[in-house]
C-alpha cells in the first residue's frame, strides 16, 4: 500500500535527475587520481617526431672525428648483449629488486616521507581557487555554479585520463 502511494507522489525534476546520474565509486576515483599523478611524471605528451624515422648511423658526425682510433674499438667490445640486458631495467624493476634484496634500512623504500599531519586543502578543479563543494558524480571539487558547469561539460564523467 505504502509503495503504491510513493510511486504516485509528485517528485521534483531535480531529484529525479540526481537519481539517474552515474556516480563513480571510490575505486574509479582512486584510479583516476593515480592516472593523473602518473601523467605528472611523464616526460612527453606528444608523439616522438622522429618515431618512424630510421636513423642509419645513430652517431652524429661530430663524434666520429675523436673516436676514430682505439677507444671506439674498445667501446664496441663492451657493448655486447649482456651489457644491454643488464642496463635495460625500468624504474619499477629496480624498485622491485630493492624490495626483494631485503636491504636493511635505510633504503629507497624506507626513505619516503609519511603523509602530512594536516588535513588536505580543497581547490576548485576548474579555476584553482579554494572550493567548498564536491561534485557528486566524480568527487572533483568546484567553487561555484559556473565552474560546476564547466566541469560537467568538459571533464566529470567524460574525462578518460
Amino acid at each position, binding site marked *: 500500500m505504502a509503495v503504491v502511494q510513493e510511486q504516485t507522489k509528485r517528485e521534483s525534476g531535480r531529484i529525479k535527475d540526481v537519481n539517474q546520474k552515474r556516480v563513480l565509486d571510490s575505486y574509479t576515483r582512486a584510479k583516476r587520481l593515480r592516472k593523473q599523478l602518473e601523467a605528472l*611524471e611523464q616526460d612527453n605528451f606528444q608523439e616522438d*617526431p622522429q618515431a618512424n624515422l630510421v636513423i642509419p648511423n645513430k652517431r652524429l658526425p*661530430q663524434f666520429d672525428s675523436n673516436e676514430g682510433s682505439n677507444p671506439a674499438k674498445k667501446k664496441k667490445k663492451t657493448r655486447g648483449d649482456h651489457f644491454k640486458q643488464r642496463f635495460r*631495467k625500468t*624504474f619499477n624493476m*629496480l624498485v622491485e629488486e630493492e624490495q626483494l634484496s631485503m636491504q636493511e634500512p635505510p633504503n629507497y623504500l624506507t626513505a619516503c*616521507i609519511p603523509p*602530512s599531519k594536516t588535513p588536505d586543502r580543497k581547490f576548485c578543479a576548474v579555476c584553482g*581557487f579554494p572550493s567548498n563543494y564536491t561534485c557528486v558524480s566524480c568527487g572533483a571539487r568546484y567553487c561555484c555554479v559556473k565552474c560546476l558547469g564547466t566541469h560537467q561539460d568538459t571533464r566529470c564523467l567524460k574525462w578518460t585520463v
Partner: protein
Amino acid sequence: MRDGKVAIIFKRLVPNCIMKAKNERRKQYIGSQIDDCKDLSGIFYLLPFQKGYLVNWDVQRQVWEHTFGKDVMNLEPEDTNAIIAEPYFDFSSIQEAMNEIYFEEYNFKAILRTNAGTLSAFKNRQEEPNQLCCLLVDCGYSFTHIAPYYNGKKVGSAIRRVNIGGKVLTNHLKEIISYRQLHVMDETYVMNQVKEDVCYVSLDFFGDMKIAKLKGQENTIVRDYILPDFSHSKRGYLKQDDTKLKPHEQTVRMNNERFAVPEILFHPSDIGIQEMGVSEAIVHVINNCPTDMRPHLFKNILLTGGNAMFPGFKERVESDVRSMAPALYDVRVTKPVNPITHAWEGGKLLSTSKNFSSLMVTRDEYNEHGHSICWEKFDV
C-alpha cells in the same frame, strides 16, 4: 675537474638529455647542442633519468660522450679524475654499472662517487667551520631530499624523500594552463621557462588567493606572459602593463597559477600526493634525529637545488619551520648564491682538499679489487 698537472677550472652546465625538435626531421640535439636549435617549440625529450634514477643508459652514454668529447670538455679520461654525484639510496645495480662504465669503458684515472648533498654539506662545513650540523634540503627536478649531516657525515637513517620536484611542477602547470586557457601540453621547454619567470612561493597563501580573485587594478598578482613564437622572439617574457599586443603575439594569463604551482612543494596533498610538504618534512626529519643534534640542525638549514630559486622559497621555509620549531631553538635558513651549482662548487673545493686522493678509487685499484673497493670507499 682536475687534470694531473694543471688544474683547469671551467664550469659547464649541460642538459642531461637528448632533444628532438618538431621541424628538424633528422637531427637530435644532445646535451648542450640544444643551444643551436632555433625553434624550441614542441621539444621532445629523451631523458636518461626516471624518478631521479638512471635507467636509460643508452641516452646517458650519448650525453656523456658528447660532454667528455671535444664539443664540450675535450677530456682525456685516462688522465682525469672525476667526481660523480648520485642520488641518495641509489640502486646497487646502477652503482655497479657506474663503476663499470667509468673504469672499463671510459678508462677514467680515478673516480669519486658521492651524493650531491654531501658535496654541498662539505662546502657548507668549509665556509662555516663552527657549525656542527647541517640540514641539507636538495629540491631538484625529480624529488626533494632532506638530509641531516653531522660533522660532514650524512645521517643515513634520517634522510627522507618528498616525491615532488620541478618536473611535477612544470607538468602540473602545463596541465592546468592547457585545461583553462591554451593547449600547451607539448611545450615542456616553454612552460618550464614560464614557471621560472613568473612563479613564486607565497608567504601568505590564502591572502594571495583573495588578491588573485580581485578584478582590475586591485589584482596585483595577475600577469600576462607573452609566449615565444620562435620567429620574432626566442624567449617568452612578461607583458608590460601599458603595451598593446602585436598580432603575432600569444599570451597566457598567470593568476593563481603563479603561486599555486610552487605551493605543491609545501602541500603535495593539493594535487593528491599524500606526503608531507618540504617545511613539514624538515621538522619531521629533525625530530627523528637525536635530541642533541636538533638545535644545531635548526640553525643551519641549507637550501640547494633548482626549486630553491623560486622567489620567496627561502622566506617561506624560514617562516614555516620557525612556526613549527620549539621556541627556544634558533632557526636559520641559508640559500647559496647559486643553489643549482652549489654541489659543483663543493666538489671543486673537495678536489683541492688534502685528503681528496684518499677518497677516490683509482683505475688500478678497481682493476685489482673490482666493485668491492668501490662499495667500501663510496658512501652513496
